[in-house]
């Protein structure tokens, strides 16, 4: 397969565009999946920084009881915006839109996704949704203050710009659905000859599972949002109890999307982990099929656990134990993945470079997140911990410690491929260490606060919680510094970094067979795939490919 996959004129996709324009227009009108991936990277990173800033400011407010920085109305808007931006603008689209776009076609040996124009449209829909979110902050009425869950009746009663903010989520949903459709079609129709489903890299498997959830679950939130808007504008009485509606119905519909959405957030991260570990252990993945099928199992069972967000809402006791039972079941495939990842390190030849260190950090943080999920999946303990800081800690360990950590892992793994530059390895190693310390300082105290009975979404708190809040706030400062370090390292190396080789880590999936950054249309000749994805005996042959 070494023959003909080398770029012939050595021009990368940065130098050659899909249209006749140059400069910024060649980017804004591009249909190249790699350029679209980078457009997403810029937009999504920007919103991540905005969301993180809200988070750090909230932590500053919570440094001591009473007012420190802002009043309760501002604080309530801050946690809502932190949630809305982090969920809808960063973590749901994040990994699929950036790394899925850039690497899914590369890893299956395709020249692009199945519908390149639709792909660009998805980016514009994302930007439109983002503009609507920002607009909802500025218009009279004020920034939305309902929490990102928009629970009714409060969201019908508040005077803030709820309609616009949820309409933004509605619009963003279409971006997600279209990306999902694009990826499912791409995986089915665009694989290189010889690449059957079980020769696909596991990142592709995880993107495939994710894409199906995006297609099937997202319309539910779309319809729910339309109903809330009709409720606010016309008072039709579906959810609002004062009009004879049922607020619990809203919670059901909301979580029927938003729980599977949690798996939209984490599955791609699991896929990236399954790429990074074999590369740095230089051996094949342990339990390929177990990992691939556990993605599908998570995608499927993930639909059936939504009401564990409602254990205290007054749903019937029967519903509560059934959903508790199913919640424990959905924990199992995640466990299977963790065990197989660790087993992949057995008898490898491990070179713990920054992407691998990110993954090690992920395995610890995600395990804590997953295991504390058992605590809140169990009925007796959830009745106590529901809507407390314990839950805040749990989902930050899963989402930020899980997906967020892997956002950085993916970035540090594929950055040399995407930009053809290498960052400073030493600074990157320090970043991972600092991140791990900052993360635990920031979020671990929240487990304790939760068990002590500190409810979430609290502007103020009882004096006995002061010490743990202080520790958490100090953690947020170190986290802020770490994030600056993480991004500064990449930006600096983009401008001044050394040129990265074609295959800096010794990876064997198809993206490492082409130059860094890849040429337009990726492969001059579509490769024939006659081997499993993580066959490191290829490394010898691949030495001749680079130039």
């Amino acid at each position, binding site marked *: 397969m070494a023959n003909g996959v080398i770029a012939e004129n050595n021009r990368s996709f940065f130098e050659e565009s899909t249209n006749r324009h140059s400069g910024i227009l060649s980017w804004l009108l591009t249909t190249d999946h790699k350029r679209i991936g980078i457009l997403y990277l810029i937009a999504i990173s920007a919103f991540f920084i905005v969301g993180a800033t809200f988070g750090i400011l909230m932590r500053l407010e919570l440094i001591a009881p009473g007012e420190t920085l802002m009043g309760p109305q501002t604080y*309530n808007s801050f946690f809502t915006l932190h949630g809305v931006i982090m969920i809808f603008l960063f973590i749901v689209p994040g990994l699929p839109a950036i790394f899925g776009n850039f690497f899914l076609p590369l890893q299956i040996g395709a020249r692009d996704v199945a519908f390149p124009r639709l792909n660009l449209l998805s980016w514009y829909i994302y930007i439109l949704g983002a503009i609507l979110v920002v607009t909802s902050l500025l218009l009279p009425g004020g920034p939305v*203050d*309902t*929490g990102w869950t928009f*629970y009714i*009746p*409060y969201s019908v009663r508040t005077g803030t710009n709820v309609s616009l903010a949820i309409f933004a989520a509605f619009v963003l949903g279409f971006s997600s659905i279209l990306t999902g459709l694009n990826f499912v079609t791409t995986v089915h129709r665009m694989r290189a000859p010889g690449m059957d489903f079980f020769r696909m890299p596991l990142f592709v498997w995880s993107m495939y599972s994710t894409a199906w959830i995006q297609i099937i679950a997202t319309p539910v939130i779309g319809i729910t949002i339309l109903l809330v808007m009709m409720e606010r504008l016309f008072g039709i009485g579906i959810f609002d109890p004062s009009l004879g*509606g049922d*607020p619990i119905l809203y919670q059901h519909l909301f979580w029927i999307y938003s729980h599977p959405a949690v798996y939209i957030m984490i599955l791609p991260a699991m896929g990236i982990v399954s790429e990074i570990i074999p590369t740095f*252990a*230089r*051996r*094949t993945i*342990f*339990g*390929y*099929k177990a990992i691939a099928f556990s993605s599908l199992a998570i995608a499927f069972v993930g639909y059936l656990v939504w009401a564990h967000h409602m254990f205290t*809402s*007054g749903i019937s006791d029967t519903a509560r*134990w059934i959903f508790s039972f199913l919640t*424990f*079941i959905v*924990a*199992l495939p995640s*466990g299977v993945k963790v*065990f*197989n990842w*660790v*087993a992949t390190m*057995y*008898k490898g*030849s*491990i*070179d713990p470079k920054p992407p691998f260190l990110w993954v*090690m950090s992920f*395995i*610890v943080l995600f*395990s804590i997140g997953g*295991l504390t999920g*058992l*605590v809140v*999946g*169990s*009925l*007796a*303990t959830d*009745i*106590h911990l*529901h*809507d407390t800081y314990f839950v805040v800690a749990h989902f930050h360990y899963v989402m930020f410690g899980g997906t967020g950590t892997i956002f950085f892992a993916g970035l540090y793994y594929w950055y040399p491929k995407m930009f053809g530059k290498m960052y400073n390895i030493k600074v990157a190693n320090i970043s991972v260490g600092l991140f791990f310390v900052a993360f635990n300082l920031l979020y671990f105290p929240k487990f*304790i606060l939760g068990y*002590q*009975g500190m*409810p*979430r*979404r*609290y*502007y103020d708190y*009882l004096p006995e919680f002061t010490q743990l809040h202080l520790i958490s706030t100090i953690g947020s400062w170190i986290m802020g510094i770490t994030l600056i370090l993480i991004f500064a390292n990449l930006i600096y190396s983009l401008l001044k970094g050394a040129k990265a080789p074609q295959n800096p880590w010794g990876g064997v999936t198809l993206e490492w067979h082409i130059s860094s950054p890849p040429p337009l249309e990726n492969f001059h000749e579509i490769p024939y795939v006659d081997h499993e994805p993580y066959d*490191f005996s290829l490394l010898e042959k691949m030495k001749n490919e680079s130039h």
Partner: protein
Amino acid sequence: MFLLFTGDPASRTTEVVDNVMIYIVAISVLLLIGVTVTMVYFVFKYHRNKGHKPVDIHGNVWLEILWIGIPTILVMTMFYYGYMGFRVIRDIPDNVFEVNATARMWNWQFNYDNGKITDTLYIPLDPPTLLHLSSVDVNHSFYVPAFRVKEDVIAGRENYLILQPAKTGDYDVACAEYCGLNHSMMYTKVKVLTPEKFNLWYSDTSSVSAAKATKAGL
């Protein structure tokens, strides 16, 4: 520090929930340490500097069965203990003292059968109290951290919560479902009195007659 598991539990449910918590956390800590130590050990043992030749091991069916099977058993026991604890929290005892609790932005009101109305909840140590929860505006949640119990207070429906105190004393009641501006200030207290003291308090209906008199005076 973490586990406020010291001293006598404030209620029957406190003990039950703490025990389930200890069970799940103990197993979780073992699993976490197991995974972390194994991973770190492998990274040192099979470090590239040591020059091992990597071995491609594609998997092992028995291992997969083992690490699906054992966790399945473990989580099923967690589910079971969680469920049994839940029954203690939810099953309504035969003999209960009943109070209606009404939530509004941002305070609580407790109506007793004899007409007494308070903003602090007074309950006897025995029998257990059955709270009927309702809201006049948005969703709230009645949460007694010391008892490890809560139940949402949903506009348009009636939920219930049972308080089964084991000790007299004053305990914080918080609102645990976000309800707007002063959500974090929607605190009150539940005062658990000995049955004798409670009866004394309960039978003093002068405030009720005073309220009625004011009403009649209008």
